């Protein structure tokens, strides 16, 4: 049977997370189809046809999918589910919002945030903030899964899938989008960045957070992340939060500045290739996961580091 990947997109472009989800789908054995549900989303459907390993792209284009509300999209997916052994979405806020609704409509379990595929019915997923890994086997006919994108290679380009347009399901009219405020940034996306500079409460203020971290991030071509404490204190937007209940990242280089290294923060970044910690407290737990630790005052160290990088 085939595998359905629910594409993540904004009606204009396909999000990179979709490529990692297709990467996971490719390990399940079966034809991979991608569903693009949106409004005026033809270009996204077109882009999805080029993903390597995708056999078919289903495009459902209707006004009531514009905001991609979970209620309407889940209803659509429920109608399509009959032909599929697996339904996958990325473990992003959008995927986490949608996938459980799909699973419940199908009366099946949902398997959250898998990091490995052991067999088509057996998956590995982190529990307890990543302090344990559970291997779970599903007995359900359809497996509804969200995929931790950092754990799977992105599918490449070079596909030539066929596009099929699918009829819309009814508009349930349960929910309306009033407004959406997206933070505009020239920086790479946190989830896909090769380098991340992350700041914690140690930065002390929004001015310091941006004033110190941005020049460093600029030099490194880095994305900026944050601890929960930094977000709660209003130093930066919520979507910078890295951790158990924020974003999970795994860049080549993660520089933690003024972050203590709580379990919940480590859960989001401990799979980074190289971790650097800058903290004035030599006993900060962040040093236990750091490849390179520098004990010092960040107000002195960070500008020095920015200057020292060519």
């Amino acid at each position: 049977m085939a595998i359905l990947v629910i594409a993540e997109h904004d009606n204009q472009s396909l999000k990179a997370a979709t490529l990692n989800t297709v990467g996971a789908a490719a390990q399940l054995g079966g034809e991979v189809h991608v569903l693009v549900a949106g409004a005026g989303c033809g270009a996204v459907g077109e882009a999805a046809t080029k993903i390597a390993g995708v056999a078919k792209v289903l495009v459902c284009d209707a006004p009531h999918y514009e905001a991609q509300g979970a209620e309407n999209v889940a209803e659509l997916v429920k109608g399509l589910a009959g032909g599929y052994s697996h339904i996958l979405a990325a473990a992003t806020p959008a995927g986490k919002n949608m996938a459980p609704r799909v699973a419940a409509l199908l009366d099946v379990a949902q398997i959250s945030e898998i990091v490995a595929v052991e067999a088509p019915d057996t998956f590995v997923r982190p529990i307890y903030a990543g302090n344990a890994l559970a291997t779970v086997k599903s007995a359900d006919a359809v497996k509804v899964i969200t995929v931790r994108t950092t754990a799977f290679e992105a599918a490449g380009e070079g596909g030539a899938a066929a596009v099929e347009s699918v009829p819309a399901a009814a508009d349930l009219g349960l929910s309306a989008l009033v407004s959406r405020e997206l933070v505009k940034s020239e920086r790479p996306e946190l989830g896909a960045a090769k380098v991340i500079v992350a700041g914690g409460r140690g930065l002390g203020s929004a001015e310091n957070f941006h004033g110190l971290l941005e020049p460093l991030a600029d030099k490194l071509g880095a994305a900026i992340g944050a601890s929960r404490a930094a977000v709660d204190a209003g130093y930066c937007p919520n979507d910078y939060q890295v951790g158990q209940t924020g974003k999970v990242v795994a860049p080549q280089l993660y520089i933690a500045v003024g972050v203590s290294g709580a379990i919940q923060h480590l859960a989001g970044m401990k799979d980074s290739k190289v971790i650097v910690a800058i903290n004035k407290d030599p006993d900060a737990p962040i040093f236990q996961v750091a490849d390179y630790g520098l004990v010092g005052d960040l107000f002195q160290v960070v500008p020095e580091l920015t200057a020292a990088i060519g």
Partner: protein
Amino acid sequence: MKILVPVKRVVDYNVKVRVKADGSGVDIANVKMSMNPFDEIGVEEAVRLKEAGVATEVVAVSCGLAASQETLRAAMAMGADRGILVETDAELQPLAVAKLLKAVCDKEQPQLVICGKQAIDDDANQTGQMLAALAGWPQATFASKVSIADGKASVMREIDGGVETLSVTLPAVVTTDLRLNEPRYATLPNIMKAKKKPLETVKPADLGVDVAPRLATLKVSEPAQRKAGEMVADVAQLVDKLKNVAKVI
């Protein structure tokens, strides 16, 4: 308006759990248990809506072991009016909990259910969405602001790249994110008062719900540990390491 708040008893967020040597699970004997932090945020929000005159009653519900009574008492000490325990020793997975909550909703007819967005033990992030699906209600997940007016909830929610505001018809399910509010500490008098609030116990069978797990846990293992790193003396040494040893800049 009645608000239902599901609360889960979980290992306290400060505890670093250990995987059992035989790979059968994590060792939670003798560790501190608390209310799931996201559920505390849910209780707080419901109680604030009651204090603001929007809600008339706040009912806390917990599914699980008899010890979950403590969690219900904690919710009542924060201001919930009464508690319902769906008591079972069986392993409960999110779909089963959603079905139990759906059955409780059928009986209680709340206008709003406020769940935590995820429990910090299984990190599933599913129950609220599943309940909404089973009830045919809208869902507003990962909420950082909730207001109720004219039979609708206006919910600001945290999404990739920023925030959005949804207007959903009631009844609805809202799930809480960290920034929705800061839960209060229960005062001693309120803890005492909570002991006298009504707590009803039912069994899954009374609700006609099959809670059999759909996922079998084959094993639980320790994640790969990072190798201990090294301390560098200054910025020059750090840059040298990053350039010439790690080769990441």
